[in-house]
């Protein structure tokens, strides 16, 4: 099977979805690039390269480049979706949810409910999320944990190229608004990705390791680190389930609870700060619904309660490391 980066896998999903369905289009800043300039329009394809080639293939009507106006971009996507289009908007850094939050949360996410179920809003909004690039406090946040708290929005966090393609094709097929958070540290990571179109259902976790001693749930960029931690411990005979929920909303609670029932222990890993985040969310779930199976404290491994620092040394200390995950697993077992 061909090996592709996450960037290329998402790009392929966009190309295929647009070829298959006229109502799909992309919109955002520099999704074409070079508009109005002496350069060739379309030669950028998004600052992360995810919309490469779309302008050339589908033209300006379906590769809609915009000024820096994120509220208008999300609003335009929402409005187009209300009349039956399937826009895929790019908002670049996830940190920029701040400049379009109302359109995401109070508009797009609430239409269906507040209008009594009489509309759908099949818009996908893409973000590049997370740390690892010394991009400091305003360009490193994950933000998906915040967006998970809003009913009406679905939230996707792929951890590998294969999932990213299938989840993107599913996101575009969904009739609900979907926020798609691409861990930017993983754009260049690759794995086998089929050329055909395929979808991965929302709310269905991937079980990436199976073990007896502890359940580890991890999101996005942290899935790889959690796997490394688990593999290291396996050498000592400690074995863990590793669960990648893939979508934080809807969340596959059944898979998580089943695993915790079996192992009796839970460690949750995410790169977001600790308060009201996904690690607490899943810890709270298990502390209620798998309580009687629990054999040790539920450990959360996440960033500290600080913004993201700039210096590489600081950011390395900020993000959850393999060592910290190992310590947490040991912590719940002792």
């Amino acid at each position, binding site marked *: 099977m061909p090996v592709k980066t996450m960037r290329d896998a998402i790009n392929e999903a966009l190309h295929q979805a647009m070829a298959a369905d006229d109502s799909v*289009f992309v*919109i955002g800043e520099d999704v074409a690039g070079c508009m109005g300039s002496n350069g060739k329009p379309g030669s950028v394809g998004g600052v992360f390269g995810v919309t490469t080639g779309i302008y050339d293939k589908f033209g300006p*009507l*379906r590769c*809609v480049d*915009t*000024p820096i*106006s994120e*509220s*208008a*971009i*999300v*609003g*335009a*996507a*929402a*409005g*187009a*979706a*209300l*009349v*039956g*289009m399937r*826009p895929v908007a790019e908002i670049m850094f996830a940190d920029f949810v701040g400049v379009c939050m*109302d*359109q995401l949360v*109070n*508009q797009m996410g609430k*239409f*269906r*409910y*507040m*209008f*009594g*179920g*009489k*509309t*759908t809003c099949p818009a996908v909004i893409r973000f590049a999320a997370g740390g690892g690039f010394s991009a400091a406090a305003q360009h490193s946040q994950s933000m998906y944990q915040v967006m998970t708290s809003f*009913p*009406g929005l*679905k939230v996707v966090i792929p951890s590998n190229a294969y999932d990213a393609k299938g989840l993107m094709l599913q996101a575009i097929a*969904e*009739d*609900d608004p979907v926020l798609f958070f691409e861990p930017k540290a993983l754009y260049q990571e690759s794995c086998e990705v089929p050329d055909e179109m395929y979808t991965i259902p929302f709310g269905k976790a991937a079980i990436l390791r199976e073990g007896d001693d502890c359940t580890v749930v991890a999101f996005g960029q942290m899935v790889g680190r959690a796997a490394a931690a688990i593999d290291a411990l396996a050498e000592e005979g400690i074995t863990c389930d590793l669960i990648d929920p893939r979508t934080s909303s*809807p969340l596959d609670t059944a898979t998580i609870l089943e695993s915790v029932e079996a192992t009796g222990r839970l460690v949750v890993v995410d790169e977001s700060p600790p308060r009201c985040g996904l690690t607490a969310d899943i810890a709270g779930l298990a502390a209620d619904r798998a309580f009687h199976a629990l054999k040790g404290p539920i450990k959360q491994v996440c960033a500290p309660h600080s913004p993201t620092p700039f210096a590489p040394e600081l950011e390395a200390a900020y993000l959850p490391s393999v060592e910290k995950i190992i310590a947490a697993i040991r912590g719940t077992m002792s």
Partner: protein
Amino acid sequence: MTLPRETLLRAYRQMKTIREFEERAHAEIMNGQIPGFTHLYTGQEANAVGVCEHLSDADTIISTHRGHGHCIAKGADVIGMMKELWGSSEGLCKGKGGSMHVADFERGILGANGIVAGGPPISVGSALAAKIRGNTNVAVSFSGDGSVNQGTCFEAMNLAVVLQVPAIFVIENNYYSEHTNISYAVGCDDLKARTEAFGFPVFVADGADFFAVYEAAGKAIEHARAGKGPAGVFAEQGRYHGHFVGDPQHYRGAGELDDLRKNHDCLKNFRARMQETGELASEELDAVDAEVMALIDRAVAEAKAAPRPTPEQVEQDVYITYGA
């Protein structure tokens, strides 16, 4: 301007329906019958009707917190609306939206919206869809004089110009945002010039005069349908009630409300013009009045009797339910 008799009759009926809907809603709110926050449109009827008379179901509007008039003008079912104000499960939004979130997608009504200037960007999206699909639909956003200082409104205007989409920005200037006069909130002296500087024409109309609004909106909509990009309409007319029901209206000058009702009434103006031109007889208009009164009576009676929502409905309609 001469309009076909049916247009005249329908326009009058729509304005009268809005007026009576609002006045009755007002009375029922005072009776404690209607829950929540309600913002009445009374006085501004010609704005909505003057614009929407140009639109078909394939064109869209998006509305505001003061949305009843826009929805009626665009053809929303009045009884379903009244039920929605009551919070019935038979309301247009099953009692989940209420006054601030009336919508009717079959009529191209993308919803009343409780966030000031929340609508214009969304409307640009609907206009963009028309452009991508290559049809001649237009997308109208209504928003108030208070909305024009909100970032989203500016962003939407510029984006519409950049993309050259058929978005119509209808700014309803009723002189106040809540308790603040437009002369304070808009820093510049000439809002029309500030808006036109974004790169599209704005047509101004007396919002107490259906014909003036109809004409201004016609120009704007024609511009947009012809593929010339966005356009604006400013409709200037005060509201007869407070910002919300219960507003003490400290901001009014002495006699301001009396003057509005007496000298700035689209229904009176319409009747006067018909009398002048002889296009419609006053008996015909009286007959419309009677029908509208009956309709609103019926709407209130049905709303009062309509079924109430049940607790299990709380968690329905958040997401699509996909077949098993």
